């Protein structure tokens, strides 16, 4: 099952190590395991959290496509770099929220969660992640970790 979210950025991330630095700076327990990030790669980006798979699908998409998909949303300007994330399991959802937050914090971008219609600044995204991740972890404890 797939949910989606977006990171709207003024510039692309430099690479895996750049992204990992952002995750570590926020204290997020997520290790990116891919060797490349979009646009050099697309599809599943492996990641580990507490020793378990917590990766997600990620691709670079044109901003025009995001605007076409969500015509009623004001994205506060034009964004040259939009990372799209797809995720399904609870573990993937947690990984994606952490990765999106680190991404927008690094480049001062915006996080977009269409399920909730939320467009968040970098600082708001950090607060959102700090509230959402523990709640999702509690959900994971209740429902089980899901398939590896």
């Amino acid at each position, binding site marked *: *099952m797939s949910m989606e979210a977006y990171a709207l950025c003024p510039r692309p991330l430099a690479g895996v190590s750049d992204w990992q630095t952002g995750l570590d700076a926020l204290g997020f327990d997520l290790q990116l*395991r891919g060797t490349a990030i979009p646009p050099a790669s*697309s599809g599943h980006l492996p990641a580990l959290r507490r020793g378990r798979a917590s*990766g997600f699908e990620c691709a670079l998409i044109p901003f025009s*496509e995001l605007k076409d998909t969500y015509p009623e949303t004001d994205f506060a300007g034009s964004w040259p770099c939009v990372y799209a994330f797809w995720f399904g399991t609870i573990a993937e959802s947690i990984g994606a929220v952490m990765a999106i937050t680190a991404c927008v914090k690094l480049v001062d971008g915006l996080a977009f969660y269409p*399920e909730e219609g939320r467009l968040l600044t970098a600082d708001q995204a950090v607060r959102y992640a700090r509230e959402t991740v523990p*709640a999702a972890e509690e959900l994971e404890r209740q*429902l089980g970790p*899901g*398939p590896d």
Partner: protein
Amino acid sequence: MRAHEPDVILAYSLAQLRLSLAFVALELLDIKAGFRPDQPRGCDGRWCGEGGSLTVIRKDRTGDPRIDAKTDEILDVLNEVVGSTEPGEGFLYGTQIHARLAARLRELDLPGIGRHGVEQSFVAGDIACHGLSGSIRTDVLLRDGRTSAAPIRAIWDIKTGETGLSPRRIRALRAGAGVGDSVPIIEIHLLRGISVKGRVSVTVAIGVVAA
């Protein structure tokens, strides 16, 4: 009078049979509607609390009876999952519905879908391990048989929101699964309702998707 007795007994038996059939039909309607006698009701008699059942507001068909019947089966399972989940909306609710639906579909092991047809990962048309770098994952897919070599007939994408798949995503799913434009991508959207009852819509993408 005694001569008519067998007729009376027969008529009585037939009436009893008809009544039994009517009860069975009623039970089936209740199951189809997602009715549960233990679900709490408000003073106005409406269901309250828990997830309620789904109202289908739109249901596109592919015209293929086997695929359309499978869509109905998936909708029934989604209805069951929503009915047994605390009502809500947003990211955590969506996460919960997706996780529960995937688990339930695997548990049911539906013909043509099986356990592996739920959240199957692919790379360029080949089945891949879940979590493999660069892989694309479909939500639910139907095959023309139980083996992984059987051709894929349809792909379902379940969304907890109104927004549809972008043409790019549809192309990526087809390319990942290694199927052509003739394989329908069927989107099932669980929408936010204004009451405890959810709404659901089904849309179908067949053929070439314009960028």
